[in-house]
């Protein structure tokens, strides 16, 4: 996922793109064949092509764009075992946790591994993500996905309850964690465990859907030497942008000459004695179906000495 070449080769994980709603992940295996309503593609015919190419299917009936994998595409295409964090929440978390190449981060729970993949991209290759998940099946799935996506070198998955006695303690963690992310039903129960692995100045983020969880978390943070406690909501607004057929009526008025309208002959029509014409106009509006809530993001910095 992190270092695509320009040319597709055996073993690569690629995305077959046919629209935002129609993406498929393939691992290149020259003995294999990909079948879809967009045509049949032998992997060996894909291998050797440039990433980003528009491929024609083997029988010539369909086409498909083949693009390189990113954590964002991965989060769209993955099988949603749990609710996943949305892209905007992820980017806001990474920005405010001050992650970069070299950071050492802790996450709980792992869930579908969507945030984990994004964190790994950011902290690799010098840093590391330790992710904790109490659900055994999810641990297995996550480990496999990280390996398949070539992220396993940068992510360690631990099967453990973050609120339990052991918390985030591991032999390879030694008060050197720069950032902790919590997505738990009772995040306040994991805050002492977080404190055990972070250092002066580390950041913590808790994601919760309900305001009551936020209230408890903020109280716990305030009484645990955290400062800069801040709760925000971020929601994405996406726009439907396109050349749109738009109808103009030719009505007289005392303010502008309308003969320029009459000269336009594209798609002229008449309705109830009024003349009109159609034109293509570049219009944009927010999508009606939108996401009204994902969760509240609470950020805080651990400052035991300030």
């Amino acid at each position: 996922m992190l270092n695509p070449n320009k040319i597709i080769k055996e073993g690569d994980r690629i995305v077959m793109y046919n629209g935002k709603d129609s993406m498929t992940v393939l691992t290149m295996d020259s003995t294999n064949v990909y079948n879809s309503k967009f045509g049949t593609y032998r992997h060996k015919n894909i291998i050797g092509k440039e990433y980003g190419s528009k491929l024609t299917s083997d029988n010539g009936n369909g086409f498909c764009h083949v693009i390189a994998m990113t954590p964002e595409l991965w989060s769209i295409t993955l099988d949603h075992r749990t609710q996943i964090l949305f892209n905007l929440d992820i980017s806001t978390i990474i920005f405010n946790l001050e992650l970069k190449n070299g950071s050492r981060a802790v996450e709980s729970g792992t869930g579908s591994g969507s945030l984990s993949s994004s964190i790994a991209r950011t902290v690799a290759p010098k840093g590391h993500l330790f992710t904790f998940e109490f659900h055994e099946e999810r641990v297995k799935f996550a480990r496999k996905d990280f390996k398949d996506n070539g992220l396993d070198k940068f992510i360690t998955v631990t099967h453990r309850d973050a609120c339990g006695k052991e918390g985030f303690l591991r032999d390879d963690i030694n008060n050197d964690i720069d950032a902790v992310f919590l997505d738990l039903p009772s995040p306040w129960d994991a805050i002492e465990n977080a404190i055990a692995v972070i250092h002066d100045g580390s950041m913590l983020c808790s994601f919760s859907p309900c305001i009551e969880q936020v209230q408890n978390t903020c109280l716990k943070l305030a009484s645990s030497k955290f400062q800069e406690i801040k709760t925000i909501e971020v929601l994405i607004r996406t726009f439907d942008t396109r050349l749109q057929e738009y109808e103009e009526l030719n009505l007289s008025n005392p303010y502008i000459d309308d003969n320029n309208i009459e000269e336009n002959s594209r798609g002229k029509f008449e309705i109830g004695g009024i003349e009109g014409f159609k034109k293509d106009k570049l219009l944009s509006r927010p999508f009606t179906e939108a996401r009204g809530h994902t969760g509240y993001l609470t950020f805080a910095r651990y400052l035991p000495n300030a």
Partner: protein
Amino acid sequence: METETPMDVETTSNNGNNNNNNNNTIVKTNSNVIKEGDHVILDINDGEKFSVIKVKLGSKVKIGKKQILINSIIGESYYSSFQVSNEKNTLERITQKELDDRLNNLVELNQNDADNRNLDQNNTAQKLTQEDITQMKEKGTDSNTIIKTIVENSESFKTKTSFSQIKYLKKKIKKYSTIVKIIKPTLKSLTEAYYKKDSRKICGLRFDSFGQLLTLGNIRANSQVLVVETCMGLVTGSIAERMNGDGTILSAYIGKGPSLSIVNNFGFDTDVLNTIYPFNLNVTSVLNKDEDISKLPPTASSGIYDKQVKEKEKGKQQKDKVKEKEEGDNNSGGGGGGEEDGGPKTIVNQRNDTSNENIVKLLKDGVWSLVIVTKYSPLNILLSCWPYLNSSGSFVIYSHFPQPLMEVHQFLHKNQMAVNQQISEIWMREHQVLPKRTHPMMGMDGASGFILYGTKVTKPSSIQKPISSPTTTTTTTTTTTKTNNLLDIENKVIAATTTIVATIEEEVENSESALKKRRIDEEQKKE
């Protein structure tokens, strides 16, 4: 005021011990009872489907695949729920408490809050096959038994939290039984029903934008309003409801005849219907050209006219016209003709004079509000109606897209035809308020549409004819004019705008600083 029809009782039989402005009688205790002759909305399974009908003893309504007798709703309270009895094909009263109890008695709910640590992710926890369930249904098993059986055969149900269990049961109840709620048709309920059903038919007008439209349009009784809409009459009806018999609504249609079928569904009294004057928008266009208005065809009959009455009045030769009208109706309603339009047509405007001559007279008298909600480009419509909006009157335009409103805004600003203009959009979100589970709803309607409003002003000298070209960015239109002319316009516009940019800037900054100031004021007050 007479009470000729039994519809809209709350309004027409309005009297009692109110202060000084009320010449009607109040029988409030009866106003919430469903009576014969009422128009009602049937809300089937909490918004799954809506129908508007006129209540009549013995009449049947198609719900699902069956014809259901509605007699039992007469005399009951509005907003009551009824269950469809599959055996008797009737509606049976069911109270909210019964609905709730049913939920609680159906199965025993989990008392401990389970966590989902060991929850199996594969949804293979149901032992019944879809076939088993279909069989039960076909046998006529009652819904409670079906749900109980499903639950008993669900492995995962026991591990759910009580909250999830309730959610699950509610879904199943909705799936296996039919609940009908009888709703009083009002602006609010009709807007909700049409928006849910197919918002395109009402130009995507969401309730909150609709509220803004009426407020910013300064809609009130005893006012004169010019409305241009392609929302099947919902906007005209909303103004009529607000005015409730006092005022004048000039309702311009685009097409062969008025397309006001939703006006019927309000169940308005004759007084209210008589405030509506439908006319062809072409009248303003012809009037603006100083052409002879008498050449225009008269206002054709429409959904809000009783066809039979009209036909009698106008004779056989009108028949073709009516047919054409119906086509026009369908066109402008975006496919119209759903079952909500199927109720018997009421008689409108028996007393008001909708002749083109009278429309022209009313237009020339001037209106205080101009309201535009159509699928067409709004600038030409606005300008065509502009001469009839009184100076200092309010205009308000709703559009799906911001770009057309930007052009109108710029045109009116550039030519100093309006002040106090503003383009806005609404961000609206619903909340789930439950103990320990309070959060905004996950799903949200992201598109309120856009509204431009403002106040018409005049220059000291009286209206001058401003330079042409709507805005510098209208394009396909502008670019096809003769080129010399075009370049001239470009130059003029550019020359004209440099100063204007400064003026807007000033106003805009003022408006930002006003908000700041207000905020400071408020904070000081809070101390």
